[in-house]
């Protein structure tokens, strides 16, 4: 029976390992992080290349390089990571691939650990490539296992979309025999990867021509199943994981016909059969109403389509057995709520964290500058937005602290302060810093260096040991680059340091450096 107890993320990792990848390229991001961690922990780096990339774009591009030489590459990221990698991702669909590529993107409906709940299937559709969406851990394994071959067979990258719930849920997995890695074999057509307009037009037209084959694959896919039912008043389309929430409501089998979707583009034949045989359609999908909008069309005429757009299912947040049940009118007799004594318990900075000492210093400084604003970024230090610090004013996307501080300074704000983490700085902060230097913007940039990527669990950070050198190399005056140790006893010193640099007209960088107490604790064990 089942043998390995794995998280959805780990099942994908194991599937990719067994599917013959030569490398995984990824930047951490909840809920995708555990895929790469698993590969790092269970395989030899000389066999499968697995170190963290600087960001999602470098990951996607390096994977394209590995594919270029004929080998299989897995790319992993969270949903917002695909925004960063989008340029490479969309164009990879134009070039096509050589060795198989699966781009695994983990969405986070309900925003458990994210700043939005964008639906990556739109990116797959945008790029015009096939999408896989597993409904359970075994399918996740199987899709990762066969995804590279599918990619090679079609000649295009495959997008695999999961959500938090599957990523972070464990179940038993049955493995398949391990496949060999592919040897080096360079592309036969040397123009394939040169997207000059003349070539790109040909490639794009080939991609358009391939659409019917993608659809044919989807029609014949094991993951797109037509499950007949006796009651044709309604036909159901259940995408990915939502199939389980549906079946949870019908423990003895569902009376309505169902098309279970696990591979896109939609399997037209199966969908048309459902529409022909049923009086109305219910679409159940986690994320945005992608399938629902497709079926409904602009006018909404034709067969009645129910789902998120008409309020049958909630538009926001992840689906679950109960809100899917409500779509069938199943309600609970009693409404039980959380007792009033229960208070919210938001996440907070760990006791002893260096970010606390930095924020205590910064709050002291800011008291003397009522006009100051602090542009921050994404990481543990974003928790500085909460009391007792309430020290930061923004958090937009990775890297935006430095660039927003620059824009605000350009507009006359002073002091304009940026607070950015070390990993976020190398992810997307350096380019913005060059903009600041080139404009001699009047900004005070604080790179909070805990020597790790803490928020996502303590992965290595690309800039560790190199931050001052990087700042100096891009042109920050070395007299305005300072390192300090964020400790209670140093708060007065740090306060003076920040004040001094605020009074300097130009780019200054302060690097409070102290190792994350979580990674420190783990090392001591």
């Amino acid at each position: 029976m089942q043998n390995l107890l794995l998280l959805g993320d780990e099942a994908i990792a194991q599937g990719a390992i067994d599917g013959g990848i030569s490398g995984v390229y990824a930047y951490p991001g909840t809920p995708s992080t555990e895929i790469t961690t698993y590969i790092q922990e269970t395989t030899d780096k000389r066999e499968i290349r697995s170190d963290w990339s600087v960001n999602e774009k470098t990951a996607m591009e390096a994977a394209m390089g590995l594919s270029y030489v004929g080998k299989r590459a897995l790319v992993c990221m969270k949903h917002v990571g695909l925004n960063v990698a989008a340029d490479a991702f969309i164009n990879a669909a134009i070039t096509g691939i050589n060795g198989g590529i699966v781009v695994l993107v983990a969405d986070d409906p309900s925003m458990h650990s994210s700043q939005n709940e964008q639906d990556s299937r739109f990116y797959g559709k945008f790029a015009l490539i096939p999408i896989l969406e597993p409904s359970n851990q075994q399918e996740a394994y199987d899709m990762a296992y066969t995804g590279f071959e599918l990619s090679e067979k079609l000649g295009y990258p495959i997008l695999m979309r999961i959500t938090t719930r599957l990523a972070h849920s464990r179940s038993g997995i049955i493995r398949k025999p391990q496949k060999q890695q592919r040897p080096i074999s360079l592309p036969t057509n040397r123009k394939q990867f040169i997207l000059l307009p003349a070539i790109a037009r040909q490639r794009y037209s080939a991609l358009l021509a391939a659409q019917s084959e993608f659809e044919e694959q989807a029609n014949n896919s094991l993951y797109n199943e037509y499950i007949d039912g006796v009651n044709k008043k309604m036909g159901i389309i259940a995408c990915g994981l939502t199939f389980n929430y549906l079946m949870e409501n019908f423990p003895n089998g569902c009376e309505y016909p169902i098309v279970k979707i696990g591979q896109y583009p939609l399997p037209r034949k199966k969908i048309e059969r459902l529409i022909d045989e049923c009086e109305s359609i219910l679409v159940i999908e986690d994320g945005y109403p992608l399938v629902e909008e497709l079926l409904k069309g602009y006018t909404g005429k034709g067969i009645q389509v129910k789902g998120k757009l008409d309020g049958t299912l909630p538009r926001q947040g992840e689906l679950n057995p109960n809100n899917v049940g409500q779509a069938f009118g199943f309600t609970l007799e009693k409404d039980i709520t959380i007792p009033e004594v229960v208070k919210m318990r938001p996440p907070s900075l760990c006791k002893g964290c260096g970010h606390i000492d930095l924020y205590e210093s910064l709050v002291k400084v800011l008291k003397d500058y009522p006009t100051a604003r602090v542009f921050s970024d994404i990481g543990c230090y974003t928790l500085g937005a909460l009391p007792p610090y309430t020290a930061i004013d923004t958090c937009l996307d990775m890297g935006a602290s430095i660039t927003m501080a620059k824009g605000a300074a350009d507009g006359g704000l002073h002091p304009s302060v940026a607070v950015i983490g070390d990993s976020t700085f190398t992810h997307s902060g350096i380019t913005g810093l060059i903009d600041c230097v080139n404009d001699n913007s009047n900004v005070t940039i604080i790179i909070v260096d805990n020597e790790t990527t803490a928020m996502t669990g303590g992965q290595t950070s690309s800039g560790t040991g190199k931050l001052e050198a990087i700042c100096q190399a891009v042109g920050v005056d070395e007299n305005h680059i300072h390192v300090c140790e964020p400790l209670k006893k140093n708060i007065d010193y740090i306060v003076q340091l920040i004040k001094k640099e605020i009074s300097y007209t130009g780019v200054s960088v302060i690097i409070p450096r102290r190792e994350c107490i979580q990674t420190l604790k783990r090392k001591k064990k």
Partner: protein
Amino acid sequence: MKIDIILSGVGGQGILSIAAVIGQAALENKHYMKQSEVHGMSQRGGDVQANLRISDKPIFSDLIPLQQADLILSLEPMEALRYMPYVKEAGWIVTNETPFKNISNYPNEADIEDEIKKHKNHILINIDEIAKEVGSARTANMVLLGAALPFLSLPEEDIEDAISAIFEKKGEEIIKLNIKALRAGSEISRNILNK
């Protein structure tokens, strides 16, 4: 056989190691299982939970539907209450009675206790104290797991084997300590149940 458990606590308390032990024992018994966990932001001292579903038939949803949990197992009393909408009327709440106060508006302890007692089937235990008696505060999660044993319908030996397997790398001493903690927890809840 089908049992739905909600494990709850505060990020960093170690509910996931309880889930890992039960999961391992369930698989040993050839049961199906699904275990949905919280990773990420909330692990920084926020409220965390795991949904653990074990059955002799295939399981669909990774999430337990409202009012269907057989057991809420919590390392923290207020966190047990957060999942009240999920427990069956006849289900059990087994919880640590020691609060974990990392918020300034933490409610009155007596009010929490009163609320827990409103649910007929409950067991409140001072897990931290027992863990210290066993020999290490860090075994608190195994004490709680022990207290849940009467409700798990999994053989006690299999749970002990799972502990040995999971803590294997940490050495014989740690395994012994954790099993001792498990037994201490189980004894307490059996005493309460037999009253």
